[in-house]
């Protein structure tokens, strides 16, 4: 079994010149790193001694470059696509929230820009607080009146629908009943 080596130890060995090359080994869902130490191979391990896995070759290359290794092999023969870790739901939710916040911020800026541009062009109209609210409240009252009228029509339509449905059900019941009676008579 290949012995493991921790990152700090590998760094020391690279600095001393004992390790010149390494192999990035494809595994299930990611890549491991096999360092060549003389005639022996040592697999890179994490702090708790487990094989350190990299999700992509990019991250493995970055780590090896940081260690001071500039020459390495890539062996993808054992690679199997997959995920090293379960996807973090909280991260995606956070990203989604941040995206929404950004979109909202942009939208507000656009709205304010529109108003500022109107003011700059001289096309903006200014009204007193009382005038504005007089109109807005009148408009609201009108909307409420329209809304309150609408349900009556809706209720009437629903009643017609219910009546038709009841009639259809009664007819179906009568047919079923007649068929059952005919079958009984035939026996």
């Amino acid at each position, binding site marked *: 079994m290949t012995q493991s080596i921790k990152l700090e130890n590998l760094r020391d060995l690279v600095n001393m010149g004992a390790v010149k090359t390494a192999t990035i080994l494809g595994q299930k869902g990611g890549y491991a790193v096999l360092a060549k130490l003389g005639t022996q191979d040592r697999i890179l391990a994490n702090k708790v001694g487990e094989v350190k896995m990299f999700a992509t070759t990019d991250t493995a290359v970055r780590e090896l470059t940081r260690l001071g290794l500039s020459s390495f092999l890539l062996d993808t023969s054992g690679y199997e696509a997959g995920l090293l870790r379960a996807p973090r739901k909280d991260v995606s939710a956070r990203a989604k929230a941040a995206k929404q*916040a950004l979109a909202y911020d942009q939208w507000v800026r656009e709205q*304010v820009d*529109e108003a500022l541009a109107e003011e700059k062009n001289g096309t903006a109209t200014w*009204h007193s607080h009382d005038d*504005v609210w007089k109109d807005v*409240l009148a408009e609201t009252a009108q909307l*409420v009146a329209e809304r309150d009228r609408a349900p009556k029509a809706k209720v009437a339509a629903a009643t017609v629908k219910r009546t038709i449905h009841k009639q259809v059900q009664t007819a179906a019941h009568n047919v079923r009943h007649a068929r059952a009676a005919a079958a009984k008579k035939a026996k």
Partner: protein
Amino acid sequence: MGLAKRDLSKAARFIVSIGHPDPIGYVTEIRDAIAKNYTIKNPGVNGRKKGTKEWVLRGKPYIGVIKWVGNDCKVYRILPTAIIKTPKP
């Protein structure tokens, strides 16, 4: 206040459309929240755009984008906050 007036009309339409039991009362509360900010000369917080200030309308999911010019307050927009809360009666 042309665009702000349009925003308020839009808000009123939204409040009516969601079936609020007392839209006029709710719209009046928005009016009072704006009037209160004006009365207490609320300077507002720095707005997203330079030179503007923003009012948070207490208890209502709307913000006002304003600018104080001496003792007068120019209301540029009344916009919904990021999270549209269903107004409670």
